[in-house]
């Protein structure tokens, strides 16, 4: 027996895989930049309480609309709240939205998509036409309409974004299911007599996962943007909660003389979304060729 496997490499464990991933990430400066942003945002989110010099909701009317200074790094808003602290705390909301929306929409959408692709026939057609309808409406408009219908609150905003996002994953997962069905190992499974359910649970789900993961990582950036957009029109988190989009919106009224009010929250949105996108892109480049290689 030893003759057959005599030089197999030691078991490539999780540590090895992560080490390799890190090695690939290091090779791409943009991906590293994206990762740095993500780490920074997560740190801010966790340590907002420690890092914020002021209470974000502390009103102080004598301090209203102050420009950036040594005391208030990003200036203050129209009721004297420190913008820097509000932006730090605001990160929690933006990130939470993404952490809710992406996994939920991703999981629900993928399950429906895998199921649809594997079952085929009338069920598949109906589901596909359903997604067609939803996807034909511009997503921002639809999200806003849904959020408005549900009522302005952070949770409703998250719900609206999730619902509108689901069809994207349904399509993606269905495409993967169709692709996987034609691969040799799926054919082998059919040859052994595997039922459709067996195909989904044993083969489709786990092989469709990487492309879905890549889409999800790219989605984080767009979700943050979407949440900010909703906040901008007043459908997200309500006052006095600090939320980047809402802050940009309110800052509009003061933009001519107090540029910092909209600029800094806007910049926070920009940096976070870009960082997520860069990292998602990099992840796709790393995962894809490796998939082919395997």
């Amino acid at each position, binding site marked *: 027996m030893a*003759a057959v496997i*005599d*030089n197999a*490499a030691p078991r490539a464990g999780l540590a090895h895989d992560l*080490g*390799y991933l890190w*090695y*690939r990430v290091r090779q791409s400066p943009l991906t590293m930049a994206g990762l740095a942003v993500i780490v920074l945002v997560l740190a801010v989110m966790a340590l907002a309480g420690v890092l914020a010099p002021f209470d974000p909701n502390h009103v102080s009317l004598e301090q209203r609309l102050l420009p950036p200074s040594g005391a208030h790094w990003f200036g203050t808003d129209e009721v004297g709240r420190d913008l820097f602290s509000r932006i730090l705390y605001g990160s929690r909301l933006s990130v939470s939205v993404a952490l809710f929306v992406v996994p939920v929409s991703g999981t629900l959408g993928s399950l429906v998509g895998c199921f649809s692709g594997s079952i085929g026939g009338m069920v598949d057609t109906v589901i596909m036409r359903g997604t067609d309808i939803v996807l034909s409406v511009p997503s921002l408009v639809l999200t806003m309409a849904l959020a408005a219908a549900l009522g302005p609150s952070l949770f409703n905003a998250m719900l609206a974004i999730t619902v509108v996002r689901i069809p994207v994953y349904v399509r993606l997962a269905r495409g993967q299911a169709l692709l996987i069905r034609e691969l040799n190992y799926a054919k082998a499974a059919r040859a052994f007599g595997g039922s459709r359910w067996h195909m989904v649970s044993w083969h489709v789900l786990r092989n469709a996962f990487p492309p879905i993961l890549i889409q999800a990582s790219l989605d984080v950036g767009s979700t943050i943007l979407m949440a900010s957009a909703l906040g901008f029109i007043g459908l997200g988190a309500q006052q006095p909660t600090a939320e980047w989009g809402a802050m940009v919106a309110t800052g509009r009224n003061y933009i001519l003389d107090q540029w910092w009010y909209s600029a800094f929250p806007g910049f926070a949105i920009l940096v976070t979304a870009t960082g997520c996108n860069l990292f998602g892109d990099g992840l796709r480049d790393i995962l894809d060729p490796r998939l082919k290689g395997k």
Partner: protein
Amino acid sequence: MASLLSIQDLTLEFPIYRGSVRALNGVTLRVESREIVGIVGESGSGKSVTAMMVMRLLVEGSYRARGSVTLLGQDVLRASEAAMLELRGSQVAMIFQEPMTALNPTRKVGAQMVEVIRLHRGLSRARARTEAVALLRDMHVADPERILGNYPFELSGGMRQRVLLALAFSCQPKLLIADEPTTALDVTVQRQVLLLMREKAREKNAAILFITHDMAVVSQFCDRVYVMYAGGVVEDGPTAEVMANPRHPYTRGLLGALPDRTGSRGQLEAIQGSVPDLTRLPEGCAFAARCPLVREACRQRPPLVVTDPAGRHRAACWAVQEEVQAP
């Protein structure tokens, strides 16, 4: 007279995560003009990489190379990209295993041929097209005009290889490198393509460097052969001599593993074990772990030693060396 191609002690490494893959480990070979030289080996032997290095087709920066590769007097490892571009396609041509991927599937064959011919010979479009027709006819294609109007997917594998051969020969190269050109083809088509290659090479005074894993094809087609294993040459010499009288244990093992050799259902001589990990090559002979003749000396890499009086058949093996040196 200087060789057309001379590779001296070429070592090639690809840095990867936590180490590097040593694809070539001191390869020495040469091709003289008008010869048909074969490189035979299994996966991991380095035969394809050798072919790629001759024309320096590997991505800059993805590898580290030591040694020398001299192609038509040009030092390939140190030449400028401009100098390499000069060589590629016009003095040295290459055809690969998968003709489908060498041709752009979205453009008609004629357009692609004309483009290549114009690139290398600066002819007008009309002249280039006439030339393309002539080249195809030369490759025994019955209806060249029609083929030019086809897309690659409309052609059979054998026909596609003929198109690629026509392109390869279009600039009268002195050396044609063929990397498993017939492996993906049916056996009857394979014979046609091989005969065609040989005929055209002889006609146009070109040498062929033929890379394959198929010993039988090598024995029928090549004047000389190099047997490669784990990035090194283990045996070389005139084909008939090497096939009839293999000296290296690996070559013997390979020939013994061919199903044609034994009677029906007999036990085939399978070389025990498997190819070494190229990221962790052993210090000594790469074949030692699987060799029936392994001995103490094998901890050191054996040099190629001449085994026949004419001095043309060599094997890299301590056991062979002992035999040869014994009175």
